[in-house]
């Protein structure tokens, strides 16, 4: 009797698993073939001394050992972390504020929304091209404005730290639209009745914001922070195209370094080792973040 029940239970469990896997399979098919497999191959490659198009020989852990002694690696890792720290809160916050603009039922919301989102559809080369025009010295827009205020040439894209501000502004302008959309999707999930109930209870708008909107958006906020952190870690095009990673190596990010190692210098094995280290760092940071954000709720 008991055995039969156990069997039935097992069969049900198998069926449950089977159903779940049917739902997962279409996505996993692509994920495994076109993402996971190349990743694993990359990790494998990191154990080789391998030139793109050239020779390849097993090198044990020598790529990793070299990496720890490589000051370019540490420098680009630092630059990347610096950008993650300055950009993630900024972009998340601005995205949230924009979503609030749109959610506050102004007249002409459609226009505002389209304006705030439109940069997001532009490609990297267009975005950086436009912002070079804005920040470049002598003829740039910012220079023309600051000159009227009596400020001399600032060399935005060639001065330490100032260049980060320029990159940050560009990145916010370009990508904040997507965070705004995510927040909007989250805001739409909050039922109107809750707001109405709060208003009837005499809550002012600040109380509504901090007591209702933000707590209700907690999952969305966690998600947006996670996505934005990962996106900020992957910074490359803006610094590469607007500042060439400079002045010096001041804005050279880790992805830039991976790209340069693998494609300019053709050292695929070393680039793969750098990639794996990058992955580990991102993974640890997001894990830590999840722990912190997760514990806050209790």
């Amino acid at each position, binding site marked *: 009797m008991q055995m039969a029940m156990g069997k039935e239970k097992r069969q049900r469990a198998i069926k449950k698993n089977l159903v779940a896997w049917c739902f997962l399979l279409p996505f996993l098919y692509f994920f495994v073939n076109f993402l996971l497999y190349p990743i694993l191959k990359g990790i494998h490659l990191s154990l080789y001394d391998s030139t793109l198009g050239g020779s390849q020989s097993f090198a044990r852990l020598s790529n990793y050992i070299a990496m720890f002694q490589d000051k370019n690696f540490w420098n680009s890792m630092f630059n990347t972390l610096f950008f993650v720290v300055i950009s993630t809160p900024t972009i998340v916050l601005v995205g949230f504020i924009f979503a609030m603009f749109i959610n506050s039922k102004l007249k002409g919301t459609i226009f505002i929304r389209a304006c705030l989102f439109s940069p997001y559809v532009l490609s990297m080369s267009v975005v950086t091209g436009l912002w070079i025009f804005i920040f470049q010295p002598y003829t740039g827009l910012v220079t023309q404005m600051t000159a009227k205020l009596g400020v001399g*040439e600032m060399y935005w894209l060639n001065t330490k730290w100032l260049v980060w501000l320029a990159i940050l502004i560009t990145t916010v302008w370009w990508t904040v639209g997507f965070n705004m959309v995510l927040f909007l999707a989250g805001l739409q999930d909050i039922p109107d009745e809750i707001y109405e109930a709060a208003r009837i209870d005499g809550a002012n708008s600040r109380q509504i914001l901090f007591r209702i909107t933000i707590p209700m958006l907690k999952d969305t906020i966690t998600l947006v922070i996670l996505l934005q952190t990962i996106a900020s870690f992957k910074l490359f095009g803006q610094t590469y195209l607007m500042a060439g990673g*400079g002045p*010096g190596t001041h804005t050279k990010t880790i992805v830039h370094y991976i790209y340069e190692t693998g494609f300019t210098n053709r050292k695929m094995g070393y680039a793969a080792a750098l990639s794996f280290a990058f992955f580990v760092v991102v993974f640890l940071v997001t894990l830590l973040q999840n722990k912190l954000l997760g514990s806050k709720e209790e």
Partner: protein
Amino acid sequence: MRKKGLWKKLTALGLAASMVLAMGACGKKETPAETPAETPATSEGETASEGSEAPASEGKTKITFWSPFSGGDGDIMTAMVDEFNAQSETTEVEFMIFKSEEYYTKLLAAITSDSAPTLAISHATRIKEYVTDGLLEPLDELATTTNVDWTEFTETLQQVSQVDGTHYCMPLDTHLLLMHFNVDDFEKLGLLEADGTVQVPRGEEEFFKFFEGIRDQLDAGRMPLSGTSMNGLPMYLWYTLLTQYGGDVCDADGTTATLDTEENKKALSVIMRMVDEEIWPKNQKNGAELFTGNIAVATINGDWAVPTFEGTDGLNFVSMPFPQFTDKDSVYADSHTMVLPVNKNKTDAERASAMEFMTWMTNHTEMWAQAGHIPSKTAVIESDAFKNLPYRSLYAESAKYAKTYPQICGVAGLTEMSYRELAAMIAGEQDVDTTAANMQKEFQEILDSYNK
């Protein structure tokens, strides 16, 4: 409720599309297992016309040709290929343009998977590295069958087209650094010669005197000289000066970097003198635009800028050889060449067609000269067709003393390193001595990594 219907439809559509897709993916996946590896990796739907093995109906061998040319270069090259296709009875060339920054990545990736094109453009300075790794086919055997006379090329190009005595590429041009002047402004300044040219006197002090004079006469907000302060341009200028002052990047056998030297420090300090004296205001992002926008009266740029300047309404300019700072004539140059990347699917018929095409191209470079570049063959340089083009013959003579990077592996790394170090120096982040020391150290590391 209507919306629900819409979403259902969309879902159904998506489902259908993805099923088709998945089926396609599965179907495709099986093909490599069934067919032997020799099947040429042609693009989708073109498998019917592998001209080589079974001559196609029109009897032409199809070959593919990749290039990094954009803008005017791309237009002119397209026109040349069209012209060739119209004339040739045996060969049809499919010409492709790819974004220049990532071009070599694409080429290398294709070579590693035997999907490289029949023919590709490569800069002459890259040849050595690719030959060392066995990525290019030697041309000598093919060239003998089609009677290529290598001595028809200019002397510099004869040297750069071979590695250890074997030819690996056919050069199309010499392209080099020039100086361009706004004719209207120089006329006002009284510095325009009777023949409509501008002559910067030879010598370092003379150069500075000339441009300081211009700087002092210009209105506020105008500049004597422009040139983008990052990426390629500082490097072209730097290598020009370095070689004019008698230096080079490494010794003759390409094992030891020679950048922490007096010659290099001299070249670097001349650049900084130009910056400090505000002859060349620092941190320019779009040097050419400062020139076309009538802000700078002269600009440093390559011969490739000539077509854009010609196309700019209301700009009267003249392009001249880059000024000489010493008695030793030299100017940074490189060469666009055509190479045969290794691809085990390539047939002899394709090779023969490629040779036919390369020979035709190198004999018709007077067309290519419209892009501003100097033809690779002496006979073409001396032809009327070339001489009749404006400006070109004014600077064509500098091809005689054009200096390319020495034949070494790691030119890509050297380029990246010098972009970065020079930009940092011009931005005022580091002084001349530090820059020279950094360049030495980093370039030595690059050389060592190839010579171990």
